[in-house]
């Protein structure tokens, strides 16, 4: 099959021969809780610090991590979270205020350990050139507009992310 035009892959072979190919990590962030926002951001930031290319595909609830209004208000589940910061029987974990309490404890843990907040991690990652892919389908399903997202995201479907991931050395789903 031949086509008149050629599609340029996101990661076409590096143009300059002198530039060695950099390692690449492709992460999927599918969860929108405070605790689960950290691992993909930590791994991507670390990878970029190692000199790797890094990209995160934010899909389903994970898209909240790119949502300008929601990203600073991510919460920790108090229900059905046996390892959570507030260890409650499920019956009590369902009470009003339990999620807020679990979230407060997690935030304090992080701040006492001098760990950056999620917005700070996002800034660090973007500063190192980590690519953020916002899942286009999630946006359509959940009614999220491009203007709802932080600056610097690529709106992408699965094929575009897989095009990036196909040339990666490490792939992780969070």
């Amino acid at each position, binding site marked *: 099959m031949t086509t008149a035009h050629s599609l340029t892959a996101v990661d076409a072979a590096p143009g300059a021969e002198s530039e060695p190919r950099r*390692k690449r990590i492709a992460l999927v962030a599918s969860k929108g809780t405070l605790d689960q926002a950290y691992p993909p951001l*930590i791994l991507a*930031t*670390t990878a*970029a*610090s*190692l*000199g*790797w290319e890094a990209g995160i595909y934010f899909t389903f609830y994970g898209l909240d991590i790119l949502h300008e209004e929601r990203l600073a208000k991510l919460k920790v589940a108090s229900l059905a979270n046996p390892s959570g910061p507030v260890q409650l029987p499920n019956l009590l974990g369902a009470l009003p205020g339990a999620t807020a309490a679990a979230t407060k404890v997690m935030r304090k843990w992080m701040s006492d*350990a*001098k*760990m*950056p907040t999620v917005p700070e991690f996002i800034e*660090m990652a973007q500063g*190192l050139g980590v690519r953020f892919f916002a899942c286009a389908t999630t946006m359509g399903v959940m009614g999220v507009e491009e203007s709802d997202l932080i600056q610097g995201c690529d709106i992408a479907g699965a094929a575009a992310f897989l095009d990036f991931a196909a040339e990666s050395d490490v792939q992780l789903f969070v």
Partner: protein
Amino acid sequence: MTQPAPTDLKVADTLDCSGLLCPLPVYKTALALGTLSPGDVLELICTDPGSLEDIPAMARQRGDTLVGLEDRKGTQIFWIEKGRST
């Protein structure tokens, strides 16, 4: 787990990451190395026990050279010579 640094080592910059946990020492080290030239040595102070594995791994991945390491009762001091990387 100590690898004495050469006695004639010239340190271009010192970065204190005491009290910081992963990924901050690695992140801050990358930023600090970014301001140096190839061949320059960064002195790095860490207290996160994970750094004992992380910093050598970082040097391997980036193409820098760990020229010295001292582990003093919970404080680790690394000397990293910047390679030709970023």
